[in-house]
Every structure is written in structure tokens, then in C-alpha cells.
């Protein structure tokens, strides 16, 4: 358990509405990531952060923005949700030391955009 909490666990929203997903970690990890999981695609990186206010785009960043104002919180925002953003979203942190090559994931947020 890497001390990662994602909220909400489930969310149903309508097309065009803004949605914010939260990832909270308790162990002061520097690197945090947002992935989405879709059938046939596995896990794809949306955005990542390498420190407070330091973020960068991943493979599938269009339609998403992120913010990291505190070390412990990494927020993912869908400014205007679309049905193609229905997915399971996972937050991850990068381990330290001997675990520095590994990512540790939260339990996920199931998002449905109707």
C-alpha cells in the first residue's frame, strides 16, 4: 500500500460538464501520474507531475488538464466531459530507492459520461 487514495471511486456525469478527479498520497512522493485504462489499450498515460506545479503531458492528454499545488494532491480535470472519456482512471506514484523503477497505483475511479 503506497498510501494512494483516489476520489471519487465512481462518477456518472453528463456530456459537457466539468469533472475533477483527485489523487491524494501520504508519503511525499515526487512523481505522480494519471492513467486511463480501456479495453484493448491497456494503461495509457494522460499527464504526470514531477513536483509541485511541475506537470507534463502524456500519450493521451487532449481534453484533460492537471494541477499539483501541493505535494500530496494531484488533480485531473475534464473541462467538458465527452463520452470518449468514459474510462477507468488510475493515479500512480513512482517508488523510491530500490523501487524507483516501479509505479504503484491507486484503486481507480470509474467514470461514465452519458
Amino acid at each position: 500500500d503506497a498510501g494512494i487514495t483516489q476520489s471519487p471511486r465512481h462518477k456518472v456525469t453528463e456530456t459537457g460538464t466539468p469533472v475533477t478527479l483527485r489523487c491524494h498520497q501520504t508519503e511525499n512522493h515526487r512523481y505522480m501520474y494519471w492513467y486511463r485504462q480501456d479495453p484493448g489499450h491497456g494503461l495509457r498515460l494522460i499527464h504526470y507531475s514531477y513536483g509541485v506545479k511541475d506537470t507534463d503531458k502524456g500519450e493521451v492528454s487532449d481534453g484533460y488538464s492537471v494541477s499539483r499545488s501541493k505535494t500530496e494532491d494531484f488533480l485531473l480535470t475534464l473541462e467538458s466531459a465527452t463520452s470518449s472519456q468514459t474510462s477507468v482512471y488510475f493515479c500512480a506514484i513512482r517508488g523510491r530507492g530500490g523501487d524507483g523503477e516501479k509505479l504503484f497505483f491507486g484503486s481507480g475511479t470509474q467514470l461514465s459520461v452519458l
Partner: protein
Amino acid sequence: DQQVKQNSPSLSVQEGRISILNCDYTNSMFDYFLWYKKYPAEGPTFLISISSIKDKNEDGRFTVFLNKSAKHLSLHIVPSQPGDSAVYFCAASDPDDMRFGAGTRLTVKP
């Protein structure tokens, strides 16, 4: 552009037998490879990994083999148990990036 491919969406094996999950990658810059296991409604959990300087890493019932020349890795589970039934994701990383395969759903039948 799928840089990491798991060509078998599903695999079914009998309890006690060997499970072999395969993964291919295209980017020769990847230098670290991982397998993750995922149960329904949970996040992926780290299972086993291997550095590109090795060709085998073993941890209990789980062994990962790496063939760099073929850009291929495999996960062997011996003996397979019903609790191993899950989706397995292969991942490959370089210092800047980690890419995942689409996953293989393993079912171990009692």
C-alpha cells in the same frame, strides 16, 4: 503506436499447470520491464520486474524471461493457482516513459 504488445487477450490453464504470458516491444531504448497483476475493481499491483542487463528473474512461482534480441519477454507462473486468475499487464520503461500492453486475462481452472 503500440510500443508494447500483448497479443493474447486471454489465456486459460488448469490448476497446477504452467501459465505462460507473452509480451513484445518495439522500442530498443526500453531498459526495464515489469509485470503487473490486476483484479477487478482494484488498481494494478506490481508483480515482478527485470532489468535489460539480465535475461531471467525469479520470485517464487513467478519467473520473467527477457530476450532482448527478439524484443520479447514472458512471464511464467508455476504451478498456476485459481487465485492467479486476473488481468496481467506487461510494461516497458526507459528513463522518461513507461508503456503498457493491453493486458492478458488469465483464468486458472480448479
